[in-house]
């Protein structure tokens, strides 16, 4: 029984190598890309027997993308370059102007009573519309609403909407200016 009682120290010099090996494996397999995209909420399906509510004509801005990727805004030829400006114009508050959507006072927490536009953007597309064009239009609409929200946020909080951090403030702005883009029932126009 001449063994020493001491436990020999573990040789840990290869630990770094093992860790390196695993590190390199995960480095190679990891995908760091964050998924980005445009969020939209689809409307619930319409029950068969319910009539489509009659929305005042002046509240609707019709945007139609033809199968040749051309734009029709309110039955007139439109242009993707000016679409953003048109949408901002349309959705801004114009009290007592018959050419623009109705204005309703809405109670929003933090903001109090704010006039909100009753306008709706109705986006329609043909079956032959290219997805790229559709996304470009969606993107223009999104940036138009962003401009409007920035404007309102500047007035009330002195900060741009995109720079807001407070959850309540963000919610308030979103409530005051909801993204009202109706992706309407598909219509068969312009062939495929």
């Amino acid at each position, binding site marked *: 029984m001449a063994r020493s009682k001491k436990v020999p120290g573990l040789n840990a010099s290869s630990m*770094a190598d093992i860790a390196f090996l695993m590190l390199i494996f995960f480095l190679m397999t990891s995908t760091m890309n964050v*998924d980005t995209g445009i969020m939209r909420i*689809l409307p619930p399906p319409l029950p068969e027997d319910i009539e489509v509510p009659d929305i005042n004509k002046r509240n609707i801005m019709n945007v139609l993308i033809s199968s040749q990727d051309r734009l029709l805004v309110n039955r007139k030829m439109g242009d993707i370059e000016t679409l953003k400006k048109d949408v901002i114009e349309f959705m801004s508050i114009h009290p007592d102007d018959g050419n623009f959507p109705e204005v309703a006072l809405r109670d929003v927490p933090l903001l109090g009573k704010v006039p909100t536009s009753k306008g709706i953007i109705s986006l329609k597309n043909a079956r032959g519309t290219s997805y790229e064009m559709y996304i470009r239009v969606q993107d223009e609409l999104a940036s138009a609403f962003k401009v409007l929200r920035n404007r309102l946020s500047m007035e009330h909080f002195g900060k741009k909407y995109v720079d807001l951090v407070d959850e309540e403030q963000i919610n308030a702005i979103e409530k005051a200016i909801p993204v009202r883009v109706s992706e309407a029932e598909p219509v068969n126009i312009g062939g495929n």
Partner: protein
Amino acid sequence: MSRFKKELSKETPEISTSSMPDIIFMLLFFFMVTTVMRETEMIVNLTPPAAENVQKLEKKSLVSYIYIGQPKDKKLGTESRIQLDDAFAVVGNIREFIAKEREARDEADRPFLVTSLKVDSDTKMGVVSDVKQELRKIGAFKINYSTRKKVVHK
């Protein structure tokens, strides 16, 4: 005035490497946590369009993906096809697919499920509309048009 010590050794001391494994382990854990392994193999070509106003998809575990694009295999033609998981599908399969995705999630999480449409930019809207109509019928209302972030030159 203090005097400088004169008996400094000329040899540079060895750098201790004993903390190296710790550093490496730290890096390792970072990558282990952030890594997402590709689980679906793409059988359609996908080049999503670019857009400026994009939002980040927050919770990846709550996202189900629908891919639409031209088949990679040229023999299958150039018509855009839908890919669910690892196989081609038709619009009718989406109902089953979404039901399966819902089943796999915790009951509390189900209302927050997002369907991400990863669509190639050359696709025609016809098939996308069909998919959207089907999603509406099933009640999967939250969708996300997957786009790349466009770099804006000013």
